[in-house]
């Protein structure tokens, strides 16, 4: 027998003694647990039985008011408005189907929708009120309130819902709300969210959700079997969300939206302050009304939005990528000057065509521009001048200058989903197509046709850097985040991304050309003349081919199907000497830049200057 007790070593003896002590402790703890259970279940059993039968504690969650979003002048863009809801408590409702159909009758809602909102009661608390009708108008509310005495288990409730004050204005930028998804709940970064929580889905609502949402509170109520609240047991107040101030100027935003939607089906406008990178207006048309999402979007409406060929959910200002057309010519011009291939007064004769090998490339103006220097070539948008210069530079040097201007890469704006555009190189084309780059590609490229792709935002930031003296700022829409009491949590300052490595003379020459585009005879941007207060502007038109038409056969707009028409670009800055605003406009399939896009830019700049003057005169509303 080699039993533990029989070995007789001191260690074993200790283990043996200790085991007895351990057994005593174990029994003692278990007696404690049993005593407590006896007390809970047998002595106090009746008390607890009553509180369980009286169906006890109902927990109500009190949502935190979501933060307000305002524009740079304190104009509220997104706030809250009251929604009147009807709720049903299953446990207190004798005949649920009848009750639901009576609610449908009183509210004028579709019975099927009411049933769907009620859902499947299995697997959820019978005491938890379930919302069956949302956002009633006052008449419907009055009808329900008047019948409440006859509807057991039905209650009405006022809840704040998100209100987008200006409907579809700045919809892409502001974003919208939805219920947090099951896939999100499974991820660690969403662990503070619970099922049924509301979360920002797009734009600022999504980006700053953690700031805007605040922290929910709750109330524990003692309720009787009829759902009457007997006593408030405990409550924690919700912490309201933080408020967000944007750099957007709502008046400018509306002016841009009105101008763009007047005559055109789709397009984008970006207005920014070239001295800071602050975005003043960011428009994508067509848009949608985020209010529709705030109360839960109707599936049919959602299908309609997602299958619309004009893609209203897409934010064209930063996600739409288009060939830049003649707005590209500044890249070719800067490259030519910096590489000293031309001087400010080097002249080229434009006879209306440019020959490379056996192919002929035409200038947009039949008959040509005659003898032109760089300035005139920009003013009149002469193609031949830039064909020649582009071929001399070559694709890879053009790509270098485009990249330095921030093209072909995300601008780093504080919104998600931005596209990077495209700046082609030899290597890129060989990699993509397997065919080598040919000089003919360079010819199209140097006037902005062909493979280049820019977003309207990139166009605005690139021109802002050219006209502000060569500083590239990160574009941003967030100005600051404030606590509900107004204390600033986070303020956004102008962030310099870099400086253009170009000589001041180069930038001055290009800028002078751009001012000429608006103000000189034969300039393509004359729409921008005669601004309020005699302010001079500069700018550049662009017309991006969507379908290559036979050379020289520039068809009249009416003859071309909408989707085959050229995209119209215009980019402008004002005042010419020390710009305070840069506006880029893209009209999809709008035709010619000078006639389709420039008038929109003019409206925006006019509104901007008018507001400035009103502000100085002190008669701003």
């Amino acid at each position: 027998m080699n039993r533990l007790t029989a070995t007789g070593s001191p260690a074993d003896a200790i283990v043996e003694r200790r085991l007895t002590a351990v057994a005593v402790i174990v029994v003692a703890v278990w007696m404690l647990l049993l005593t407590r259970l006896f007390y809970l279940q047998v002595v106090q059993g009746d008390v607890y039985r009553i509180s369980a039968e009286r169906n006890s504690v109902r927990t109500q969650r009190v949502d935190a008011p979501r933060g307000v979003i305002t524009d740079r002048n304190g104009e509220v863009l997104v706030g809250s408005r009251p929604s009147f809801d009807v709720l049903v408590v299953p446990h207190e409702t004798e005949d649920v189907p009848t009750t639901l159909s009576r609610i449908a009758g009183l509210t004028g809602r579709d019975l099927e929708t009411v049933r769907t909102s009620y859902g499947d009661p299995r697997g959820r608390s019978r005491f938890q009120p379930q919302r069956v009708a949302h956002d009633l108008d006052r008449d419907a509310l009055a009808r329900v309130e008047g019948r409440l005495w006859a509807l057991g288990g039905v209650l009405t409730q006022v809840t704040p819902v998100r209100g987008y004050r200006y409907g579809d204005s700045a919809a892409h930028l502001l974003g919208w709300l939805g219920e947090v998804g099951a896939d999100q709940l499974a991820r660690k970064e969403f662990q503070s969210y619970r099922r049924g929580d509301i979360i920002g889905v797009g734009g600022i609502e999504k980006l700053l959700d953690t700031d805007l949402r605040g922290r929910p509170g709750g109330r524990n109520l003692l309720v009787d079997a009829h759902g009457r609240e007997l006593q408030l047991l405990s409550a924690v107040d919700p912490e309201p969300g933080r408020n967000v101030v944007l750099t957007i100027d709502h008046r400018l935003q509306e002016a841009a939206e009105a101008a763009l939607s007047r005559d055109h089906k789709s397009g984008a406008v970006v207005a920014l302050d070239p001295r800071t990178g602050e975005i003043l207006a960011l428009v994508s048309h067509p848009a949608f009304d985020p209010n529709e999402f705030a109360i839960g979007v109707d599936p049919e409406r959602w299908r309609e939005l997602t299958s619309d060929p004009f893609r209203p959910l897409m934010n064209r200002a930063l996600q739409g990528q288009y060939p830049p057309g003649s707005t590209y010519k500044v890249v070719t011009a800067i490259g030519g000057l910096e590489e000293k291939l031309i001087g400010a007064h080097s002249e080229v004769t434009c006879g209306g065509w440019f020959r490379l090998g056996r192919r002929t490339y035409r200038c947009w103006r039949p008959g040509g521009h005659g003898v032109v220097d760089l300035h005139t070539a920009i003013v009149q948008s002469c193609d031949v001048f830039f064909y020649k210069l582009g071929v001399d530079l070559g694709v890879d040097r053009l790509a270098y200058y485009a990249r330095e201007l921030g093209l072909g890469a995300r601008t780093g704006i504080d919104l998600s989903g931005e596209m990077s555009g495209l700046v082609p190189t030899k290597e890129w084309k060989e990699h993509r197509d397997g065919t080598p780059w040919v000089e003919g590609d360079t010819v199209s490229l140097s006037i902005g046709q062909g493979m280049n792709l820019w977003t309207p935002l990139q166009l605005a930031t690139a021109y802002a850097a050219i006209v502000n003296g060569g500083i590239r700022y990160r574009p941003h829409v967030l100005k600051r985040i404030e606590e509900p009491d107004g204390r600033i949590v986070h303020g956004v300052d102008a962030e310099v991304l870099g400086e253009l490595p170009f000589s001041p003379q180069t930038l001055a020459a290009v800028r002078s050309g751009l001012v000429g585009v608006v103000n000189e005879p034969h300039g393509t941007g004359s729409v921008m003349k005669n601004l309020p207060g005699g302010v001079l502007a500069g700018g550049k038109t662009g017309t991006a081919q969507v379908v290559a038409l036979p050379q020289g056969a520039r068809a009249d707009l009416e003859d071309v199907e909408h989707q085959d028409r050229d995209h119209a670009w215009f980019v402008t800055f004002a005042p010419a000497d020390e710009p305070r605003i840069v506006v880029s406009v893209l009209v999809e399939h709008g035709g010619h830049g000078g006639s389709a896009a420039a008038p929109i830019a003019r409206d925006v700049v006019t509104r901007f200057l008018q507001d400035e003057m009103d502000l100085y005169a002190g008669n701003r509303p």
Partner: protein
Amino acid sequence: MPGIDRRLIQNFEWPIFVMGLAVALIGIVNLISASPERSAFLPDTAWRQLVWMGLGLALLLATLLLDYRTLERIAVPFYGGVILLLVAVLFIGRIVNGSQRWIDLGPMNLQPSELSKLALIILFARLLARRSATSPIGLLDLVFPAVLVAIPAALIVKQPDLGTALVLCVVSASFLAVTRVRIGSILLIVAGGVAAVTIAWLFFLHDYQKERVFTFMNPERDPLGAAYHAIQSQIAVGSGGLFGKGFLHGSQSQLDFLPEEQTDFVFSVLGEEWGFVGTATVLVLYLGILIRGLMIAHSSKDLFGAYLAVGIVSLFFWAGAINVGMVIGVLPVVGVPLPMLSYGGSALLTCMVALGLLMNVSMRRYIF
């Protein structure tokens, strides 16, 4: 080693086997009550648990064939393997409710933190059994074991699973109760524990875990959170009375007033539906297993077997006491499941293998 020794059958450890099986079966029946779905005769969770139980039973009987002393040899590789799994789970683990605890094995999920309990018990039994028998244990002797606990505990806190890490620490510390340790050493260990808690608080704990501690100190703080769970749980248990409301008739559990009713608060479902008779029965069965386990430790033929039995008893003791204490409102809500009753395959499997090891030690006390 003979395949099946006749003496093994003669000395079959019936008490542990019967009591363990009884608790496991009560657990399955109770899970039917705790499942939210009512459509099938056997809800999904109860059905899965039954499969795990069958698997556990097979494994339990299989371990009986093996001499437990073999475990002494595999203690180190087993521990190492579990650590690797714990590291792996942080990278490839499945996330449920914000915690990354499970490795996806197709139809089933493995929870390595459950295996780590067994690995540590075996490793410590080996360490203690090999020590020189007479010299008392000083503080320096405890540094190495402390590191052995700290590695898996830190990995588990990171998942995060505070409850399991806590059980791991107290079970390991319990080995001190059956060794010769100087009083000074114990004081220093307490100091070390305080330091460890501070470090965990500063670097490892998630906000919701800190919130739970605050809530226990001040239940008014969060009416929707842990305190609410504790109140609802007490109402459920208390309203069960002496005989309970009957199978599937508990209003608190059937009406979803109870949180985590399949895992951490499964005992309150039992209390509501079966009353004091039910809870006392389970607790007495538990106590039977604990006392019988200590008797097995006492009669073990070698120190390794004794320590192994002590470790297993300690595991059941702490998990049981913490869970029941939490359910009846005498301990904070820390999220420790109840052995054999809470839903969780890896946990049930670990428990049954642990019971198998107890039986193993018992049945080989006459064989040498």
